[in-house]
């Protein structure tokens, strides 16, 4: 294993254009598990903490809370509510909600503004359910090289849950969107601690908001949402990064113009060109808001399995994309020269859910082996090892590599 040098990085990042299905192994080294810097083993990650309604999780920060899901919870189809990752932006988070007074407002460029209690939503709209992966834009940020400041997540800033609620489309129809509407803006109960900090507000274009899939959820895995995951209502935008999944949602505003706001115009942006890559020396001049999930697969086991030569070990992981649909996940144990298809396990819970995969691998001899997993989707897109970097550490999805030490 060796680190990518800067020149190679520049050369390659200029070559992989958007939409091109690149050969999956550009060269056999990626920095994910470089021994020199193993972020997932950083000492600060060793302390597990228990926050209200949550199980023991990896503490990134306590105020505002950012809690990472331990990998062991990814051995099941649905991530339990108590283990689902937590990420708030502003320290003024809701710690108490009174359903007697809580109202979701739907207003702005509409005929009939609505003010709805959670009971109204449950009673007066058709309930819908959907299983979807919620993934932080910065999931796996700590694996980028060079390192990027920000929440130092390993792979646990995501989870897969069953969401139940009402279609945003139905709410918008009930309110009667006026002609000329362009965007829909979403805000929740969280507040900035200081007056000059921008409130967390996100937007979707109207067409997307009214696609019938975007949902206002009041239940997560058939229970109330934990407070820290957005009780009592959360916007669910299937296939899109969770930055759009506004927590404790209480304001929906239809706009007759493009929404302008810090959390869309300045934060959560990715390079527009070069397959959304850039380099520290040559930052992209044009950026766009982050949007759909990129295709990815990860290892759930091992990471630290003790392997013996000629003794098969189980290798397990999961894969998902933006709803296009993962068709296969392959495993390589020889640096990407040869690949073997793994088996899907668990249930197929719909196109926005993840698929778990499993395979057995028999180490042929003692020594150090690099395992790689690679997903392919229905559109024929395949993950690659092409170096990936952006200044914010978003949407990491290079082929993951893990090191297995095999003893005699």
């Amino acid at each position: 294993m060796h680190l990518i040098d800067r020149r190679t990085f520049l050369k390659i990042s200029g070559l992989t254009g958007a939409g091109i299905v690149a050969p999956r192994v550009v060269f056999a080294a990626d920095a994910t598990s470089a021994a020199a810097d193993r972020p997932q083993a950083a000492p600060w990650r060793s302390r597990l903490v228990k926050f209200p309604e949550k199980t023991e999780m990896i503490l990134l920060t306590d105020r505002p809370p950012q809690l990472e899901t331990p990998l062991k919870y990814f051995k099941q189809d649905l991530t339990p509510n108590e283990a689902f990752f937590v990420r708030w932006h502003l320290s003024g988070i809701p710690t108490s909600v009174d359903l007697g007074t809580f109202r979701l407002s739907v207003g702005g460029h509409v005929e009939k503004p609505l003010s709805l209690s959670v009971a109204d939503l449950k009673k007066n709209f058709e309930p819908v359910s959907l299983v979807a992966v919620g993934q932080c834009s910065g999931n796996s940020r700590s694996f980028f090289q060079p390192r990027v400041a920000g929440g130092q997540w390993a792979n646990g800033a995501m989870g897969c849950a069953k969401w139940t609620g009402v279609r945003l489309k139905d709410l918008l129809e009930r309110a009667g969107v006026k002609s000329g509407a362009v965007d829909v803006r979403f805000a929740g109960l969280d507040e900035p601690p200081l007056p000059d900090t921008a409130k967390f507000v996100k937007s979707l274009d109207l067409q997307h908001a009214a696609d019938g899939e975007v949902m206002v959820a009041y239940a997560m895995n058939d229970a109330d949402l934990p407070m820290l995951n957005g009780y009592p209502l959360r916007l669910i935008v299937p296939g899109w990064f969770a930055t759009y999944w506004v927590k404790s949602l209480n304001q929906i505003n239809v706009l007759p113009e493009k929404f302008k706001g810090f959390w869309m115009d300045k934060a959560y942006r990715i390079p527009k060109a070069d397959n959304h890559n850039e380099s520290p020396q040559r930052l992209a001049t044009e950026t766009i808001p982050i949007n759909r999930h990129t295709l990815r697969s990860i290892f759930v086991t091992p990471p630290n399995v003790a392997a013996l030569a000629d003794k098969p070990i189980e290798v397990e992981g999961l894969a998902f994309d933006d709803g296009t649909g993962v068709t296969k996940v392959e495993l390589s144990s020889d640096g990407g020269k040869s690949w073997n298809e793994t088996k899907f396990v668990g249930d197929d819970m719909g196109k926005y859910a993840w698929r778990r995969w499993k395979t057995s691998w028999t180490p042929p001899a003692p020594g150090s082996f690099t395992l790689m997993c690679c997903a392919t989707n229905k559109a024929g897109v395949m993950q690659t090892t092409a170096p990936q970097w952006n200044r914010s550490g978003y949407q990491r999805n290079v082929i993951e590599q893990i090191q297995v030490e095999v003893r005699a």
Partner: protein
Amino acid sequence: MKRIALLVIVLAASIAQAQVKSIELPKYQPYLPPGPGRELFATSCLSCHATRYITMQPVMTQGKWEESVRKMIKTYGAPISEELVPEIAQYLVAFQQAPLDPLSRVTANPEPKISFDPNAGDAGKGKAVYARACASCHGTEGKGDGPAMANLLPVATNLTAGRFARSAVVRAITHGVPGTSMPAFPSLSAGDVQDVVACVTQMGGATEPTIVSDQAKLLFTQNCASCHGNDGRGDGFNASTLPRAPTNFSQREPATEQALKAITDGVAGTPMPSWKAKLADPQRKLLADYVRTLYHGD
């Protein structure tokens, strides 16, 4: 009939109660290892986030940290003057070389079992209790300058500036003040507590009266209420998330110059930021006067 009506009321009350969901967040003491710029960092950064934001970062250079602090100012509106950026960054570099964050939980102590009459104490007897239990941090005269305070943030409260409600002092002594070095004193008898409260509340006194101005009230609502609450009772929206509770001005009347200093320089080691870069001198003076009008006593 009456009984049914009562039942309905009880039911309605329990339904209303069932509709409120609340959580109590665990809180951690800000970790402030020694280093140049420690106090400046401790008055500039803790309003919005915990020190754990530093703990988890990859090792960064002075230049990278300066970039980070500037981002806080420019994109997140942190009230920090540009010329302070290098010193804060210097501390952040030192922070990353310090031992790992011990992650100490801020715990609230349980309600004391004995009850206290806050008005029953003997200040004369209280002096001896004070000398034994309080003076090492709060100083022999209560100015918050005792020898044990070296390097502790936040520093001990100056008990001579302004005044405190007796019930607030009782609470501090029996519960401690979470998020500070002030412990609870379970070893003090009820009589000792009453006496020392009498002694402490005599150390300060009422400040000059001021007039409430609409402008001051507006400034308070815009800048302070998110933590201190609209009426200054320390119960703003953010209050429940903070390691040290915001000052409750209904029970604490600071001296003018003390309030002005807190607003101008922040209170190191607490989420109270310095407002020098955001509010002009006259505005800060207005606020210092305004918070003194919120005192109600017990």
